[in-house]
C-alpha cells in the first residue's frame, strides 16, 4: 500500500505538481517583495522529499535475458570500432564492437547497456523490448575538438591560435556558493580568484594573468551571451571595505560554459576593456527534440574553517599578572604577583568566573540551500530554455545572509530559411543582509577580536553588556549587539535582456544584430540602533540611511560574419562589426536620525533628516571591430583582430584608440612528416602579440577641470573639485604569448603550456601634483607595470575501465608582478603598504625586527633610520601579497553509478599582514590605562600567546608579556605571516541511479550527491582563514587581515532530477 501511495504521489508529481510548481514559481516572481514565498519553498521541500524517499519503495522486477544486437556510430554515421558495451551492474557481461561497429550481447529488457568510447560521451540505454539497438555517440565536449566561444563568434578548439581556458557547466553547477566567480577558483591556469571576505554575496576578486593596473580595476570584463555587463559594486552602503558582488545577481546553474580569454589574440577584440582578460559566459539553450523538465536542489550547513582559540578568563588574568611580574624583572617595578587581578577585583582561580567565548557568540552553523526548476526543449524551428531558482544562504556570522530568486528564458527561433531570431532574458532579485566588518570601528568581527572573557554578552536583566563596563579597551561595542541590532540590507533587482536576429545574406555570409539592456535597480537600507554605542556616543538616538542606485546600460551591436573554404585548402572565417554602448546611472541617498525606538527603522519616523542628495553619471563607448582567421591546409593558422574604441571618459586629445593583435599557430600533426606516428594527436605551437586597454575603475569625468557644489551657511557654494588633464587616456597593455597545445594517445592526455609577458603602460594613476594648487593629485597616465609568467594545464584520463574510471587535471601558474616605473618612487600608501619600482603591487612596508631577545624577552626592533627612536620612519619593505605560484588539481572518479570529484587548490609564497593579532596578541600592553594604578589592555589573547617568552633563555618569536608598550608596534613585521595554503576546495560524491530504475519511476535521470567545500586546509597561517583581503578590489593594499569575515566550510546534500 505504502509503495503504491508513493508511486501515485510520483505520478501525480510528474504530471501535475511540476506544472503547479512552475505556476507557483511564475506567480511568486511577480509577487515577490522582500521575502520569498514561503509556501512555494515548502512545496519544493515536499517535492524534494518525495523524490528522495519514493525510490526506495519501488518494487523490483525480474525478466529473462535474450540476445541483443546493435551498431555504434559517431554523429557522422561512421562506425566506431572498439567501443565498449557492458550491461550496467554486471561486469561479467561485456563486449567490444567489431571493425564494422557492430556488437552482440545478452541482456534482459529491464537492463541497461553502457556504451563508451574514448573521446566520446558515454551513453546508457535501457534495453526494453528491442532486439536491435543502434547507438550514436557524441564527441566529448571536454576534448580539443570542442567548440569554444570567442569574442563575436565561436571556433573549434583545434583552430584556436590564442590562449583560452574553458570551464564547463559541470564544474560550476550545484556548488553552494552565491556567485559563479567563486566557483572558478582553481579551475584554470593564470586565473587567480580570491574571496576577500566570507560575507554572503560579497565581492570576489579575479585576476587573469596578474594585476595590470594600480588604480583602475584589474578585474576582467564579464560578457554574458555577448553583453558586457556591469560587474562593479553598486551599493552605496558602508560596510567596511566589503564590496557587494553584482555577479551574484546571476544563477550559476544557468551557465553552459565559461571561456576565459587570456592572451592578446583573444582579448584585443574587446579593445579598451580587454587588458585584464575577458570572461565569456554562455548560458544554456534549448536543444531540439524531447522536452526536459529538471529539478535540482541542495541544502547544507556552513561553519567557519578555523576558529581562533582564545584564553579563558583564568588564563587572561594569569597573563596580565605575568605581564606585571615580567615588568618587575625587566623594568624594576615592584608589582605583587597578583597585581592586575587584585586591581580588577578577581581571583583567577575562582571557578565561577564569567567565561565568554566571543567567537562562539558571533559565529554559528548556518544553512545554505538552492532550489531550481528548469524546462527546456524545442522543435526544429523553436527551441527554449527556462529556469527558475531560489538560493538562500544564511551567513556563518550573525546578522548576515543572502537570498536570490532568479528566472531565465532563452529562446531561439527560425523565422524563415534565412532569418533566425532569438532572445535571452533574465530577471533576478537579491537581498543581501550585511553587517559592518573589516577595518571599521563598529565591525562585528573586529570588535570580537580581543573580547574580554570576563564580560558577558547579556547582563542579568537581559540587556546587552556594555564593553565600557569591562576590561578590554579594544571593544567599542558589544559585537552581538552590532550583529543583531544593526541592519544593513542591499536589495537588487536586475534584468539583462537581449533580442537578436541573424540573417543569412549569401553563402557563408551572415549579419547578426542585437539590442541588449542591463538594468539594475538597487536600494540600500541601513539602521544604527539607539542602544548602540555608535548612536549613544553621538547622541543621535538611532540613525538610518536609505539610498538607491539605478543603472541602465544599453548596447547595440551589428556584425557580419563570413565563413568559407576555397580550393579545399584555404579556410576563411572573418567578422567585422560595430558596437555602441551607453550607460546612465542615478543615485540618491537620505540620512536621518532621532528615532522613537529601535522597533522603527524606516526613515519616515525619524525626527531629523541630516542629509539628502541625488546625483547621476553616465558614460559611452563607440566601437568598430574585426577579426580574421585564415587557415592554410589545416596546418597553418593565422588570426588577426582589431578594435577601435572611442570612450567618453577620456580627454579630448585622445578620445579614440586602436587595439590590434596578430597570432599564428602550426598544427604539426597535420604535416606529412608526422603522418605515421600515433603518439601525438595534436601538437600545436602558437604565438600571439597584441595591444589591449583598460578604462575601467576611473571616474567618468576624470579628464575635466571641475567645480562641484558644497554649502556654507545653508547656501550652495561652488568649489573646485578637480584639475584638468586633456591628455588622459586608457592604460595600454602589450602582451606576448608563446604557447603549445599537445594532445597524446588520441587526446586521452592533453597539455597546454604558455609563457606570457604583459607590459602595461600609461597606467591610470593619481599623479601627485604640487599641493599649492590646492590639489594633491590628478588622474594621469603614468607608470608601467609588468606581469610575466608560465602557465601549465594538463588533463588526462588516467584509468578508463568498464566500471572504474579516473580522470585528472592539474594547472599551475607562476606569475611575477613588477612595478617598472612610477612618477614618484616609494609611495607610502598607508600604514602598512608601499608602492616601489622593482617591487610587486601589494608590497608590505612595516617596522621590522630581529626576533625576540632570549635574555630579556623583548622584541629586537630594527632602527632602520638610526635615529634612536622606533616609529613609522623605521618601516621597510618586508614582503608582499603576491603568491609565487598557485593552481588547482581536480580528480574525477567514477565507479558504476558513483562519481567522486575532488578539487584541491593551492597558493604558495604570499604574505599576510595579520593585523588582527595586534589586538589579540597584546600580551598585557595597557594602551590607555596606567600600569601601576589601573591596567587596561586591548583585551584577551589568543592561545598562541602561550608560546611567549617566559624565562631567560627561552627561544620564541613571541615576546614577553608587559603592561607597557615595549614590544607592541601596530604596523610591524611581528604580525606578518606566510599565507601559503593547500585546500581541499570541493569534494562531491554522487550517485546516478541507473536508467532501468529511473525509467520505472518516471524519470530520465536521477542523481543524489553530497558535497563539501573547504573541508581541509593546510596552512601555517594563524588567522581565521588564509583567503583574506581586507581591502577587496584594491590590490595596492592587498593581503591584510583585520577583523575580516572568514571563509566557510560547507557540507551539503543535493539531488538532480530530469523528467
Amino acid at each position: 500500500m505504502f509503495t503504491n501511495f508513493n508511486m501515485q504521489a510520483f505520478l501525480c508529481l510528474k504530471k501535475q505538481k511540476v506544472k503547479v510548481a512552475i505556476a507557483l514559481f511564475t506567480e511568486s516572481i511577480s509577487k515577490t517583495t522582500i521575502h520569498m514565498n514561503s509556501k512555494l519553498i515548502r512545496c519544493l521541500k515536499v517535492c524534494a522529499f518525495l523524490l528522495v524517499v519514493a525510490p526506495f519503495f519501488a518494487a523490483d522486477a525480474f525478466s529473462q535475458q535474450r540476445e541483443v544486437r546493435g551498431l555504434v556510430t559517431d554523429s557522422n554515421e561512421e562506425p566506431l570500432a572498439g567501443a565498449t558495451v557492458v550491461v550496467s551492474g554486471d561486469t561479467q557481461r561485456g563486449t567490444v564492437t567489431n571493425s564494422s561497429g557492430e556488437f552482440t550481447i545478452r541482456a534482459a529488457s529491464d537492463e541497461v547497456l553502457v556504451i563508451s568510447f574514448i573521446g566520446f560521451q558515454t551513453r546508457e540505454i535501457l534495453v526494453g523490448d528491442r532486439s536491435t539497438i543502434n547507438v550514436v555517440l557524441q564527441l566529448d565536449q571536454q576534448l580539443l575538438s570542442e567548440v569554444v566561444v570567442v569574442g563575436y563568434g565561436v571556433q573549434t578548439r583545434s583552430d584556436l591560435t590564442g590562449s583560452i581556458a574553458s570551464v564547463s557547466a559541470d564544474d560550476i553547477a550545484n556548488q553552494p556558493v552565491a556567485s559563479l566567480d567563486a566557483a572558478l577558483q582553481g579551475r584554470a591556469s593564470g586565473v587567480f580568484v580570491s574571496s576577500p571576505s566570507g560575507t554572503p554575496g560579497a565581492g570576489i576578486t579575479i585576476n587573469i594573468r596578474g594585476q595590470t593596473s594600480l588604480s583602475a580595476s584589474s578585474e576582467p570584463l564579464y560578457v554574458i551571451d555577448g553583453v558586457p555587463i556591469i560587474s562593479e559594486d553598486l551599493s552605496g552602503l558602508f560596510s567596511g571595505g566589503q564590496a557587494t558582488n553584482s555577479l551574484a545577481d546571476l544563477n550559476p546553474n544557468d551557465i553552459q560554459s565559461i571561456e576565459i580569454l587570456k592572451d592578446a589574440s583573444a582579448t584585443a577584440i574587446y579593445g579598451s576593456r580587454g587588458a585584464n582578460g575577458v570572461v565569456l559566459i554562455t548560458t544554456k539553450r534549448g536543444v531540439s527534440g524531447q522536452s526536459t523538465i529538471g529539478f535540482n536542489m541542495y541544502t547544507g550547513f556552513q561553519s567557519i574553517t578555523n576558529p581562533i582559540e582564545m584564553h579563558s578568563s583564568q588564563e587572561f588574568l594569569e597573563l596580565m599578572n605575568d605581564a606585571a611580574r615580567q615588568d618587575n624583572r625587566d623594568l624594576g617595578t615592584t608589582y605583587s604577583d597578583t597585581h592586575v587581578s587584585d586591581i580588577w577585583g578577581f581571583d583567577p582561580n575562582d571557578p565561577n568566573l564569567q567565561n565568554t567565548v566571543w567567537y562562539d557568540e558571533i559565529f554559528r552553523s548556518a544553512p545554505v540551500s538552492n532550489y531550481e526548476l528548469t524546462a527546456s526543449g524545442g522543435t526544429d524551428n523553436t527551441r527554449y530554455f527556462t529556469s527558475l531558482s531560489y538560493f538562500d544562504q544564511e551567513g556563518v556570522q550573525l546578522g548576515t545572509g543572502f537570498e536570490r530568486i532568479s528566472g531565465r528564458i532563452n529562446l531561439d527561433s527560425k523565422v524563415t530559411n534565412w532569418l533566425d531570431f532569438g532572445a535571452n532574458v533574465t530577471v533576478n532579485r537579491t537581498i543581501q543582509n550585511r553587517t559592518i566588518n573589516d577595518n571599521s570601528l563598529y565591525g562585528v568581527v573586529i570588535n570580537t577580536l580581543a573580547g574580554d572573557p570576563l564580560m558577558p554578552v547579556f547582563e542579568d536583566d537581559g540587556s546587552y553588556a556594555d564593553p565600557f563596563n569591562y576590561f578590554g579597551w579594544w571593544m567599542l561595542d558589544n559585537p552581538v549587539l552590532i550583529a543583531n541590532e544593526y541592519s544593513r540590507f542591499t536589495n537588487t533587482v536586475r534584468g539583462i535582456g537581449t533580442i537578436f536576429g541573424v540573417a543569412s545574406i549569401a553563402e557563408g555570409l551572415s549579419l547578426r544584430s542585437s539590442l541588449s539592456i542591463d538594468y539594475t535597480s538597487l536600494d540600500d537600507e541601513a539602521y544604527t540602533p539607539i542602544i548602540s554605542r555608535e548612536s549613544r556616543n553621538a547622541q543621535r538616538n538611532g540613525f538610518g540611511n536609505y539610498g538607491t542606485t539605478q543603472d541602465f546600460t544599453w548596447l547595440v551591436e551589428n556584425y557580419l560574419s563570413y565563413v568559407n573554404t576555397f580550393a579545399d585548402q584555404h579556410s576563411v572565417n572573418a567578422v567585422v562589426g560595430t558596437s555602441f554602448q551607453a550607460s546612465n546611472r542615478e543615485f540618491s541617498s537620505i540620512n536621518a536620525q532621532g528615532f522613537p525606538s529601535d522597533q522603527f527603522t524606516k526613515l519616515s519616523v525619524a525626527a531629523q533628516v541630516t542629509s539628502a542628495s541625488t546625483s547621476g553619471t553616465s558614460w559611452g563607448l563607440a566601437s568598430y571591430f574585426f577579426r580574421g582567421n585564415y587557415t592554410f591546409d589545416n596546418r597553418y593558422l593565422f588570426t588577426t583582430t582589431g578594435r577601435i574604441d572611442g570612450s567618453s571618459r577620456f580627454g579630448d586629445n585622445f578620445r579614440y584608440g586602436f587595439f590590434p593583435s596578430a597570432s599564428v599557430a602550426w598544427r604539426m600533426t597535420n604535416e606529412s612528416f608526422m603522418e605515421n606516428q600515433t603518439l601525438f594527436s595534436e601538437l600545436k605551437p602558437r604565438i600571439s602579440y597584441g595591444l589591449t586597454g583598460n578604462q575601467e575603475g576611473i571616474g567618468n569625468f576624470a579628464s575635466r577641470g571641475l567645480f562641484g557644489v558644497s554649502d556654507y551657511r545653508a547656501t550652495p557654494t561652488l568649489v573646485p573639485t578637480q584639475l584638468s588633464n586633456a591628455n588622459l587616456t586608457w592604460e595600454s597593455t602589450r602582451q606576448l604569448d608563446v604557447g603549445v597545445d599537445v594532445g597524446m594517445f588520441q587526446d586521452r592526455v592533453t597539455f597546454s603550456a604558455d609563457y606570457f609577458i604583459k607590459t602595461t603602460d600609461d597606467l591610470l594613476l593619481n599623479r601627485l601634483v604640487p599641493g599649492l594648487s590646492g590639489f594633491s593629485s590628478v588622474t594621469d597616465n603614468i607608470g608601467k607595470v609588468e606581469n610575466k609568467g608560465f602557465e601549465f594545464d594538463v588533463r588526462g584520463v588516467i584509468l578508463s575501465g568498464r566500471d572504474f574510471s579516473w580522470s585528472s587535471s592539474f594547472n599551475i601558474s607562476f606569475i611575477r608582478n613588477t612595478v617598472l616605473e612610477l612618477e614618484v618612487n616609494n609611495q607610502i600608501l598607508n600604514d602598512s603598504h608601499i608602492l616601489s619600482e622593482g617591487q610587486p603591487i601589494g608590497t608590505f612596508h612595516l617596522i621590522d625586527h630581529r626576533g625576540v631577545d632570549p635574555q630579556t624577552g623583548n622584541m629586537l626592533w630594527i632602527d632602520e633610520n638610526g635615529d634612536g627612536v622606533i616609529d613609522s620612519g623605521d618601516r621597510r619593505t618586508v614582503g608582499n601579497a603576491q603568491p609565487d605560484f598557485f593552481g588547482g588539481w581536480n580528480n574525477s572518479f567514477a565507479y558504476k553509478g558513483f562519481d567522486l570529484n575532488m578539487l584541491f587548490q593551492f597558493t604558495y609564497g604570499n604574505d599576510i599582514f595579520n593585523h588582527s593579532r595586534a589586538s589579540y596578541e597584546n600580551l598585557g600592553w595597557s594602551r590607555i590605562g596606567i600600569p601601576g594604578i589601573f591596567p587596561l589592555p586591548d583585551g584577551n589573547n589568543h592561545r598562541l600567546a602561550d608560546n611567549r617568552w617566559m624565562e631567560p633563555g627561552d627561544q620564541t618569536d613571541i615576546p614577553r608579556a608587559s603592561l607597557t608598550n615595549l614590544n607592541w608596534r601596530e604596523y610591524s613585521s611581528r604580525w606578518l605571516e606566510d599565507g601559503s595554503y593547500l585546500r581541499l576546495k570541493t569534494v562531491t560524491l554522487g550517485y546516478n541511479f541507473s536508467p532501468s530504475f529511473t525509467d520505472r519511476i518516471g524519470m530520465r535521470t536521477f542523481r543524489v550527491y553530497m558535497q563539501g567545500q573547504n573541508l581541509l586546509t593546510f596552512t601555517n597561517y594563524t588567522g581565521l582563514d588564509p583567503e583574506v583581503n581586507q581591502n577587496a578590489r584594491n590590490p595596492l593594499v592587498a593581503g591584510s587581515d583585520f577583523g575580516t569575515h572568514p571563509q566557510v566550510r560547507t557540507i551539503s546534500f543535493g539531488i538532480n532530477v530530469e523528467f
Partner: protein
Amino acid sequence: MKKLSILLITTLAVFLISCDVLDTEPQASLDANTALTDGASAQAILLGAYSRMQVTPYYGAHFTLSPDLAADNARYQGFFDSQLEVNSGSVPISNLWISTAWVNMYRVVNIANLLIAEVPNVTDDAFSTRDRVLGEAYAIRALAYFDLLRVFGYHFDIASPYGMPLLLEPIENNDFNLIPDLERSSVAATYQQILSDLNTAIGLMEGYVNNTVMSYWGAVALRARVNLYAGNYGDAFDDADDVIENGPFALVEDVQDLFDTTSPTSESIFDLVFSDQDQSALYVFTFQRDEYNVDPDLTDAIEPDDERAGLFVFERGSDRPVKWSNPNNANNVKVLRLGEMFLIRSEAAVFDTNDPNAGLDDLNEIRDRAGLDDLDPFADLDEYVDALLQERRIELNYEGHRFFDLVRLDRFEDVLNRDAFRRAFPIPRDELQIQENLVQNPNYPTE
C-alpha cells in the same frame, strides 16, 4: 528585397546611434573654465572658500585642535597614528595631517586667487557686491597664508628665509601641467604679502559687517593678530584697540554662554558656521573619539574659582572640551573673537613699551569675566609672560593657539622640552617629492 531592407535599416540605425554616445556631461559639476561667469557665481565661489575652510584637516577639526595636541593641552589616547605623531612632538614628514593641511589651506588660497584675478573682469551690471567679494577674497587669502605660515614657516623669526611659497595667480586653464614650482619666500616677504592683502581687504570692505564671513572687522582683527606675531606691536595694539573700541562687539558676560550656543555671539568677529546639516568633525574627535583628550595638565592649571573650569566635562574616562560638545558637530569655530583682542592688546602694549604692567587691565578684563580676582602688578616681563600664557591657555584652549603661543613667546623648549627645530612642522614629504624648488625646514629629513 526583404533582406536588403533589413540590411538598410540596420545600417541606418547604427549611424544614428553612433552620433552621441560619447557626449556625456557631469550632472553635479561644472566645467572649471565656465564656473565664474557673473556676480552670482562669484558669490557662490566665495562661499565655496568658506566651505573649504570647514574641511576636517583645516578648521573643521585638526587645525583647530592640533595646536593643543602638539602642546600640553591635549593628549592622544586614540587610534590614528597621525594624531599620535602630533602628540608625541616628533612629527615625521609623512604625517597625514600636515600633508592634508598643506593642500587644503592652499585650496582656499587658490579659490581666493581665482576671485582676485577674475572678479574685476566679470561683466555683470547687477554685481553690486563686487568690492565686498573682492575684499573678502583678499582677507581669506591672508588668513590661509597666515595659517600656512604658522604651521609650516618660521613665523617666529622675521629674519628667516623659511616663509611660504606665494602663489598669487590662479592655475592657468586648471591644467595641472601649468602649476608653477615656486621657491619659498622669506618670512618677512610672507608677512608683507599677508599684511598687504589685509590692507587691500580693509580698504574694499569699509562698513561691511558680518560675523559669519571675513568681513571688515574680521580683516582688522586678523591684522591685529598678524602684527602681533610679526612683532609689529604698535600696529597690533592699534588694530586690537580699533576692534575693541569701534567694533560692534561685546564680551559675553558669562563665559559658559560663549560656547553654549551654535550661533554667533556678541563676541564673534568671525565665526565659521557649522550646523546639523553642515557638520564639523570637532565633536567626533573630542567626544566620540580619543585623539584629542583633555590633558590633566590643562585642567590642573585652572585656578580655583575660575568659571572656565566649567568648560570641561568628564566622559568616558577623560575630560572633554565643552566648546565642541554639540553632538551634531554644529558648534561654530570661533576663528576670531573679542576675548582674544583683549589679550592681543595687552600683549602688544607690554612689548611695545617694555612695561610689564602696560597690559594689566586687559588681562584683568578677561579674568574678571571668568570670576577671578585682578592680578597684582608684575615685577618683570618674564612674570608678565607667565601670566599672559596662563590666561591665553585657559581662555583660548581647544581654539588653535597653544602651540603657536609657546613658540612665539619663546617657551617652547621650557614647557614642551623639545628640540628647537620642531617649532615649525616639517614640509610634507609629498610636496618635496614633486617640487624641486621647495626647501625643507632645517633639521627635518627631506625624504
